């Protein structure tokens, strides 16, 4: 790396390495290792080793692995072709479709559950089309799996997508001109080149499924229990903290094993890519068929459940039987206008514009913070030495640790500081950082060193080399990483980690507030707030995508 070369003049290489790690490691030490080890040390004791606890852990572990493997497999099945679609083809509505696939990632589970049940529930669209079908969706394993695919496909699309779009199409053309058919081109050329990014994306998806909590509770219902759900039950409902600590440790060890395996596999396969890409309009019949089919599939899968939210926020679907004929039903903007009225004069009233600004502010801070911390780590990881091989698995641990236990750890470690709004972007960054690093790292590793050397030996200045070779690859990855940080923060993944601060409520918090009380107006307002969050997410992502346009020459 450029910066590394410059530093090498003044400092020995090991010091340069260490300096790359100081910021990210300090951050993890303060916001992850310290609180987590304090809560585990406080709660874990010999009583955790009861036979009951092992029975609970055993059955939860089995189901956790089972659903995580299935979910990850299904996510790859939809995600890989979709990544190919977005990386290779140019078509109308592409940006919007791509932004759409990322929207679920930031919606609260309650809202997604409402969306699915509006579609598949007993009064949903499916039932209207097939009135005799009597199938139960909520509370089944398919509901869990579909929700996981719905949430996580965007991870595959983004991470594998960057790798695919930086892949030199000439490689495939060469293979094809040497007589390889489409299947062999994929198997022998494209897939091996994509391997690091596929592994990175798969690991992230797997960890998300592995530590799944809200989806299991809300869509799976009560008969399914993952380790994370069991930790919540033991810690919060039964107040059995030793058992929760044991489960949290088991989950942490599993995460560590996956991360080490990942590091082992990927360290062997660094691929250097050419910093160019080619986007084509679908031309042959086969290409047109593929693009059309997947556009229909993706928009059906993502748009149908999501569309019920804006619909429910703008229409009264049916009048209650007793009120029929007396009240108007159909189109209404009441739910939106009501959002602006603090009807009950509550201390905790959330003005929608304020909530939107708070959410955006936190998201912006999270993007800056996670890129700032993620870049040095990703640069160091791109050319791993022994130090990196040890540190690499640690980066992933925040994703695999129990949010419930970490939240309790924050409480005992930081106590009264928890009321500070400054902590929110830090908590969001904790979740965003693994994504940012895993997105940047394969891209940085793929920068072709030979090209850089050739360029400098031909007289290109370092800045020219950076502009022509590093920048095009890094810009794409930085945008993807920034989008991850943005969506993670908007979706409040860290909400359970910290005390909610009524002075600075966010949009997801407002949605929860409305849904926690009965009444048609509350339901309508929660749908209106969810629609605002969706729009915010779409606009945010389309804006981020705009940044890739200037002087790229790829469009």
């Amino acid at each position: 790396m450029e910066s590394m070369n410059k530093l090498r003049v003044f400092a020995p290489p090991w010091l340069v390495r260490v300096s790359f790690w100081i910021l990210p490691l300090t951050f993890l030490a303060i916001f992850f290792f310290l609180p987590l080890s304090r809560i585990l040390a406080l709660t874990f004791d010999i009583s955790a080793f009861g036979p009951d606890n092992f029975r609970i852990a055993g059955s939860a572990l089995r189901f956790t692995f089972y659903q995580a493997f299935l979910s990850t497999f299904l996510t790859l099945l939809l995600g890989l072709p979709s990544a190919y679609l977005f990386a290779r083809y140019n078509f109308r509505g592409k940006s919007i479709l791509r932004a759409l696939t990322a929207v679920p990632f930031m919606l609260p589970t309650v809202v997604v559950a409402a969306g699915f049940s509006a579609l598949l529930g007993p009064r949903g669209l499916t039932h209207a089309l097939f009135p005799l079908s009597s199938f139960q969706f909520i509370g089944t394993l398919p509901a869990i799996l579909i929700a996981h695919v719905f949430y996580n496909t965007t991870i595959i699309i983004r991470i594998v997508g960057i790798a695919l779009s930086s892949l030199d199409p000439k490689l495939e053309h060469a293979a094809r001109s040497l007589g390889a058919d489409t299947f062999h081109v994929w198997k022998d050329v494209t897939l091996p080149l994509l391997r690091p990014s596929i592994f990175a994306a798969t690991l992230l998806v797997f960890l998300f499924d592995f530590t799944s909590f809200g989806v299991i509770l809300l869509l799976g219902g009560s008969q399914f229990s993952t380790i994370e759900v069991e930790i919540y039950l033991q810690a919060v409902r039964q107040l059995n903290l030793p058992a929760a600590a044991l489960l949290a440790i088991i989950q942490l060890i599993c995460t560590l094993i996956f991360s080490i395996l990942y590091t082992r596999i990927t360290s062997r396969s660094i691929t250097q890519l050419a910093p160019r890409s080619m986007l084509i309009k679908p031309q042959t019949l086969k290409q047109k068929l593929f693009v059309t089919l997947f556009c229909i599939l993706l928009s059906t899968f993502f748009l149908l459940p999501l569309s019920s939210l804006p619909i429910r926020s703008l229409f009264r679907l049916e009048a209650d039987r007793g009120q029929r004929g007396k009240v108007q039903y159909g189109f209404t903007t009441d739910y939106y206008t009501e959002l602006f009225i603090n009807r009950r004069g509550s201390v905790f009233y959330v003005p929608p514009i304020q909530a939107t600004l708070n959410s955006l502010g936190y998201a912006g801070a999270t993007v800056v913070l996670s890129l700032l911390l993620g870049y040095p780590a990703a640069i160091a990881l791109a050319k791993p030495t022994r130090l990196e091989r040890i540190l690499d698995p640690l980066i992933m641990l925040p994703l695999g640790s129990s949010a419930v236990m970490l939240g309790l750890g924050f409480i005992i470690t930081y106590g009264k500081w928890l009321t500070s709004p400054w902590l929110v972007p830090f908590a969001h960054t904790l979740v965003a950082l693994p994504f940012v690093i895993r997105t940047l790292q394969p891209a940085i590793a793929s920068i072709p060193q030979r090209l850089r050397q050739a360029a400098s030996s031909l007289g290109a200045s370092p800045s020219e080399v950076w502009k022509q070779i590093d920048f095009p690859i890094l810009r794409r990855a930085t945008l993807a990483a920034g989008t991850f940080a943005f969506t993670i923060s908007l979706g409040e993944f860290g909400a359970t980690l910290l005390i909610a601060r009524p002075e600075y409520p966010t949009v997801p918090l407002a949605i929860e507030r409305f849904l926690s009380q009965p009444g048609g107006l509350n339901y309508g307002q929660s749908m209106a707030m969810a629609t605002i969050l969706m729009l915010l997410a779409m606009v945010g992502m389309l804006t981020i995508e705009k940044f890739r346009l200037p002087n790229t020459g790829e469009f």
Partner: protein
Amino acid sequence: MKRLPLLLLSFCLLLAACAPQATPTPTGPQTLTIMTHDSFAVSEDIVKAFEQANNAKIVFLQSGDAGAVLNKAILTKDAPLADLLFGVDNTFLSRALAANIFEVYASPELENIPAAFKLDASNHALPVDYGDVCINYDKDYFTDKNLPVPQSLEELTKPKYAGLLVVENPATSSTGLAFLLATIAHYGDSFTDYWRALKENGVVVVDGWETAYYTNFSGSSGHGPQPMVVSYRTSPAAEVIFADPPVTDAPTASIDSAGSCFRQIEFVGILKGTQNRNLAEKFIDFMLGQQFQEDMPLQMFVLPVNPNTFVPLEFNEYMRNSIQPATLSPDVIAANRDEWIQAWTDVVLK
């Protein structure tokens, strides 16, 4: 790595600098922190009035559901995060008292409160509000189908009500736990037989109140499949108050026959180690006083423990009958709760 401790220190200092000032200045208002659950709500003007009258600044720390809040209070007992804790209910009361997190305070306002609510005779935890967990039903469903509304827990196991009831899992929901306790108060040790019969009759179990009410219940705006849901006796009033457009009558009603509802009582207590004991006492008096008690029904849909308080008309309208709710002593609940939940799980979910 030698610089790590130094950096860590500077980071901590930075954080400390960003944190709001916790120590009160002698002239400025005194800060009183109240730890509570996410469902807590109160009118802005009465809080403002209290702040002005007492030169105080009130901070509410909302940290999860009632169980999570109690957990956090117990974990931070040596360095309390707040001066007061509101929201421990009678199902958690014994655990809170056993953990010894409260200071004694015999508020003068207690004399207005009926003895039935004062479950802690030692006055560590003082009752503030109560609510009855009852089955709500979709009135139109039963009229349309010409089906009589079940009047007792027993009737729910009849075949004509098969698949019509949705309940919350008592392991994940306090509403669900309250309903389980109602059946235990009624059936004693044979409550598992009753639940086996309910299961055979197709009872639907979901994780929490929000899902039960908005996704499964047909009487709410979610228009779900089940016409009966375990909710609160105040929910029909809320359906009128938060109707859009306004309605003349609630679309739902509660089944409140003797023994079919369970009474939840919520308590407040001064956390041990508070630096603001005087102000904390004043705030408790304020919570038990008429103004706050009258504010609660419309903010949190719970009922005041102070019987001299005015309750909104909608509440009286939908809760006209006097009610004999099921009760169990907090000690019995604390001693058996885990076993009961496990027994319930084995019968209903396995």
